């Protein structure tokens, strides 16, 4: 059970990372964490570190690339950038998500007489 929960979270987290990079362009880990925190409010207000294993995984899958660069306040930071494969992955994930969401939505809207 515990394992499953983490998987779901990591899956959604990965999607958020990809979308953030898609919208904002190359960003370092802290930047990504802040954006996700701002938008999602709840998720990632604690345990921001879990972002890094997700980033590593995405990098291994070829969805993002990373390189060292100077941050806004001239600190050395690692910048992540979406690759072409990452764009495709995002598209696919989004479609998936939309489908799932639509199906779930329909189930919520369904009434007893519809099923009769």
């Amino acid at each position: 059970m515990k394992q499953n929960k983490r998987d779901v979270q990591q899956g959604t987290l990965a999607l958020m990372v990809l979308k953030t990079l898609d919208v904002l362009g190359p960003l370092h880990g802290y930047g990504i964490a802040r954006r996700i925190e701002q938008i999602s409010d709840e998720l990632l207000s604690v345990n921001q570190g879990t972002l890094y294993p997700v980033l590593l995984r995405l990098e291994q899958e070829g969805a993002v690339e990373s390189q060292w660069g100077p941050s806004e306040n001239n600190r050395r930071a690692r910048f992540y950038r979406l690759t072409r494969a990452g764009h495709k992955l995002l598209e696919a994930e989004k479609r998936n998500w939309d489908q799932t969401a639509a199906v779930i939505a329909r189930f919520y809207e369904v009434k007893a007489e519809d099923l009769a």
Partner: protein
Amino acid sequence: MTALRRLCKRLRSVATRRGGDERLREEMESHIAAQTEDNIRSGMAPAKAYRQARLKFGGVEAIREQFHAEEGLPLIENLLQDVRYTLRQLRKSLGFTMIAVLTLALGIGALITVAVWTNAVLFDPWPQVRDVRSLRFIDATVLGNDGYSVRYGQLQFLRQHGHSFSQSAAFEGSDLNVYSRNGEPQVTHGGTVSSNYFYLLGVKPELGRFFQPDADDRVYGAHDEVVLSDALWRTRFDADRNLVGRTILINRHPFSVIGVAPKGFLGIYGGLAEALWVPLSSLCDLSPDAPPDPLQLYGLEVVVRLPSGVADTSAAAELHLLAQRYAAAQHSDNNNGWTLNLRDSAHFERGFFSGISEQLPLLTGASVLLMVLVCLNIASLLGQHAARKRREVAIRTAIGATPRRIASQVLVETGILAGTGTLTGWAAGLTLSKVLYLLLPNFGLTQTFNLQNDLRIDAFAAAIAVGVTLVCGLVPVRQSLRISQHEALHEGGAAVAGAPHKRTAQRILLGLQLGICFMVLVCCGLLAHTDLNICLRDPGFDRHNTLTASIDLSGAGYSQDRARVFLTGLLDRLRHAPGVASATLTTHLPMGDNGSGNARNFSIPGYVPAKGEQMLVVTDFDGPDFFHTMGIALRQGRDFTDADNSISPKVAIINEAMAHRYWPGGNALNSRIVVDQVERQLVGVVPNFAYHTPNDTDPSPVVFLPYLQAPTGYGYAILALRSGMTTAALTDQLRQSVAALDRTLPLQDVRTLEQVTDDQYQGFRVPAELLGVYALASVFVAIMGLYAVIAYSVIERHREFAVRIALGSTRGNIFRLVLRGTTWVVVLGVVTGGLGSIAAVQLLRSMLFGVTAFDPASYLSAAVCLLLTVFLSGVIPARRAASVDPMQALRSE
């Protein structure tokens, strides 16, 4: 795709062991610093800002763990860690490692050896031959006796009416006199084969071509062509590529060389190497006195190919039906009780394969037993090893190792031992199987076995390694997982006498080991006893001081008449040569491998055969002084002499078996017998002697006829000389005498009678010898296992011994105490071994001679051996126990 790419990256990260730890640390620092700055900007005090940033980031260690888990492959990394750890440990306990690996190598080596041999006779006997598994052989049974050849006419009948075989070919081995280009003849073993032989086997020529597959075998002389083996082509003809198309002399007749067979192809005659092949249609040209249609008379071996989808049983059933139809169509008594059988390569009666496959069950059984013994031994060694590591495992568990990690480490340890043992055993087995070759009786012929390693054997070895790991690993895994931390960590204090309840399992394992050992020893004892009985049995003739040789006169171009003159002259010359006590000719030497069993029709005036009684008897032709030369004293009458020749009255000598059967009144001498329509007078009766094999206890009737009264058969003769001195000096004498009459005539099979008969004895010695090797091996394994266990228990109990000595026990008492600990093991061993032997002996029964299956001597000596084994393995640890210094032992804790 992405999953694969990710796996590659993770594997690379594991392989290079280049952690991204540095990168992660830097990223985390940068993250926290940025967060801290933001916190300060929003008004927090620096210390609080930093603290909040850390809190928000989460547990650094947990993140690192997670990061590493994503980065590499934790499963493989753990495994590698276990491997490194295990290797370090095994290096530290070198004695244990060596014993375990050697024991395993011994067991696995034996199994691999048997596997290589099974492969060589059953699965892959003939390299270069296409789809060996679909080849079958056909032989005939006559009156319940197997292994008869098939005639060409019978083969033609099968070809016309059979549906189960896609193709069939005939072949027979033959000694051919091959002349190299400088004119020197050499007797070479070759094959006479039907024209479609190579086509059926699917062999591709290395050079030139093979026989036209559709040529008629019965158009004699139309295709006097020869195919050479690669080896013969290289050794005798210098690998001359221009030889194809040229002519060479075989049996003084020109044959045109049409091709060279690929390297490694040496015929399919059950492990007997053939060096060249001539077509059946050349039979008339191989011998000047061949009958006009030799294929009508000669026996042949038949090979067929079963099409895929045809089962052996249905093919065999069709073959039996065809045989019945054929026999019925002949309208002759000759085919009474005649049928045809289908054989696979391992049961093809010619050559060595069937002889070897007879031994294979015994060897397989012994090897499997040995392997079981080895596994028991390894399991008990590993169990003991695990017991020694109790404290370590307890500590590992205490600081958080999961049972899975503990079990995986133990399995890795077992796996490494099993892997190393298997590799060693595999290499040893491959070598050993070739050495075993030399143990075979060779009958003076070149053997060829495909003793190569192949994928099947590799897979078998790998399967053994995995099997051993799982089977033997269970004991230590179970033991490690059941260790109670409390007990293990507090051991030092309380226990003085160890923990006896833990030894029950070990005792059972040891007892079973001794039981198997006992079984092998009993079987070995029975076979050794058998062997002794056979060797000590009087064969009925004198094997010593006799030289034998054979000459092939028809192969050298002699006609029957010239050959008879030559042989008479040669005998005369030999008899007067210095050092020769007597000289003779024969068609069959006692216990020889050549020319025996020529059954002829006979009748006895006044004797009325019972209905269905076959009036057939084995006959040999023997020269003057034959029985004198063989050291056989006649019971009645006289030996053959020079005077028994073609113009003198026809005579015969019979053996006692014949005399008792047909002249029970003892009045055989001077009676008359008709053999092949020729009436003869009986001039002598000889005692029964070992005719074929040294364990011949049921002698068949034999009639001996004078060589010089034979109508034909002078083309091939066996010479025998009895010497007054050593046989070595006779060899030169024989060569000179032959050369004086014909300089170019090759002398074949020059061997003493002892060498000829030794081959027969060897056939009986081999199983006993092989089982002896197994017995030694199992005793060795048992000693190692017992020693290791007793030695460890002595170390474990040294404080107990110290206390006993301190309390007044003598050193002798301690010594006996240790040895007495093995009593139960021995009792268990003898009981299980005794029960096992009862089963094992049933399988051996047919191999025994003059020994009952429950031979007390064998059982008793096995028991004594077992006791000695236990004593030997216990004596060193027991002495060590007796020499414990109480002061030192008690102070050391």
